[in-house]
């Protein structure tokens, strides 16, 4: 594109894409989220080498491979411990953890609680499609109890996990719900989540076109949250528990100081440390 020099020097979303072609099913919301993340990074004008994207296992956890940023496609449910460790060791990096509802709330559920509690300055984006898509459609923690499917005839009968309220109760400093099919709103939410100090949790409703075709209707169901965000966690929790799961927007911004990252204490040489362990 023959634009002016100023335009050429500004990063574009394409600068944050690797050459690897996504293999998500056509129609998958995760593809939109990838575009939204790259748009957010371009708006923030972060260089690829200033950003690390960490994931676990699942369809949505493929994102690091599709990005030109540093990436780690790790162990199932363990995106947050890796992201936390990285941020503590390298506070200069912008660290984003990504994954799905099964990876984050079931296999990695315990890590989710403690990442919220520690409040390390990272952004956690969960692409929630309420199903284990990669393994052919089992019910996940956020699946409604009456979702009738081949693998769960009549539904699971089990109450769905409420990630936003759990995040609030556990101490997350920024809580938002987005929709993959709302590129402008979700991009802005990711930008704000990265900017906000502490642990930012963004649940993005991301339809699974293959195993949850009913989620195509989500586009007609989502709406902007009727009130602006609050800094009162109990008020935010009350709003979330009384909505139908389709109010989108930034719901809570806290002011809890983030976990202090970087080296603490006086550095000691290796011989001094070894001496403590000598027998």
């Amino acid at each position, binding site marked *: 594109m023959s634009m002016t020099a100023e335009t050429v020097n500004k990063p574009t979303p394409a600068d944050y894409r690797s050459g690897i072609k996504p*293999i998500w099913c056509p129609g998958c919301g995760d593809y939109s989220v990838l575009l939204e993340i790259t748009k957010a990074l371009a708006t923030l004008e972060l260089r690829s080498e200033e950003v690390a994207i960490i994931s676990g296992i699942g369809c949505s956890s493929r994102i690091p491979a599709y990005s030109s940023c540093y990436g780690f496609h790790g162990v199932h449910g363990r995106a947050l411990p890796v992201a936390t460790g990285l941020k503590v060791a390298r506070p200069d990096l912008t660290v984003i953890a990504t994954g799905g509802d099964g990876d984050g709330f079931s296999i990695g559920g315990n890590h989710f609680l403690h990442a919220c509690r520690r409040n390390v300055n990272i952004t956690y984006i969960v692409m929630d499609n309420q199903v284990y898509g990669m393994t052919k459609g089992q019910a996940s923690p956020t699946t409604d109890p009456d979702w009738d499917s081949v693998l769960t005839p009549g539904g699971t009968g089990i109450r769905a996990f409420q990630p936003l309220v759990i995040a609030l109760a556990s101490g997350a400093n920024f809580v938002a719900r987005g929709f993959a099919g709302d590129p402008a*709103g979700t991009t802005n939410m990711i930008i704000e989540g990265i900017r906000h100090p502490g642990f930012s949790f963004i649940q993005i409703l991301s339809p699974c076109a293959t195993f949850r075709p009913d989620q195509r209707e989500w586009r007609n169901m989502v709406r902007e949250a009727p009130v602006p965000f609050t800094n009162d966690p109990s008020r935010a929790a009350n709003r979330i528990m009384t909505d139908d799961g389709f109010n989108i927007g930034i719901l809570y911004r806290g002011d809890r100081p983030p976990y202090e990252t970087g080296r603490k204490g006086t550095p000691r040489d290796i011989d001094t440390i070894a001496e403590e362990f000598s027998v």
Partner: protein
Amino acid sequence: MSNEQNIQINLANIPQLLAHAIALENEASERYADLADLMEAHNNYDVASLFKKMSGIEQLHVNHIQEMVKRHRIKALPTVTYHWLSPEGPETTDTTDLHYLMNPRQALKLAMYNEQRACDYYANIAAHTQDEETRRLAQELSAEEAEHVGMVRVWMDKYPEPEADWDQDDDPPFQPD
């Protein structure tokens, strides 16, 4: 979450209009190329090939608009914040409208919708710009897009309607990590 009907696009001059035109065609071309890759990964070669063709056609439109830039003796297009009626450019396919089992007719229906949105977009500019030359060029571009709508419709009609159970699959994709 935008309300397209209430948005008025008011571009001041021809360089601004052509900057938008190139951006929207480029974005459309890149999206079709991405979608072709997705379809190929899911063995839907008919639709992959169609999206590749669409990507190429949009690239020809970029070249066509670059010729217009030369014709208007514009040395460098301005740096602009793009004003669209929706979050993405008007010819950019909505990624959530797809399915791995869709047939070429369904894919061309999406393409036709994109061309119609581009037609409406230029018409919106023509209706709201204060500059007479910009209005004329926006009308010209809108008419070109209307012609594309007709061409895609003819192309689409060569393919049959999908079967009623076109999206049923007893063995849906398994994606090993």
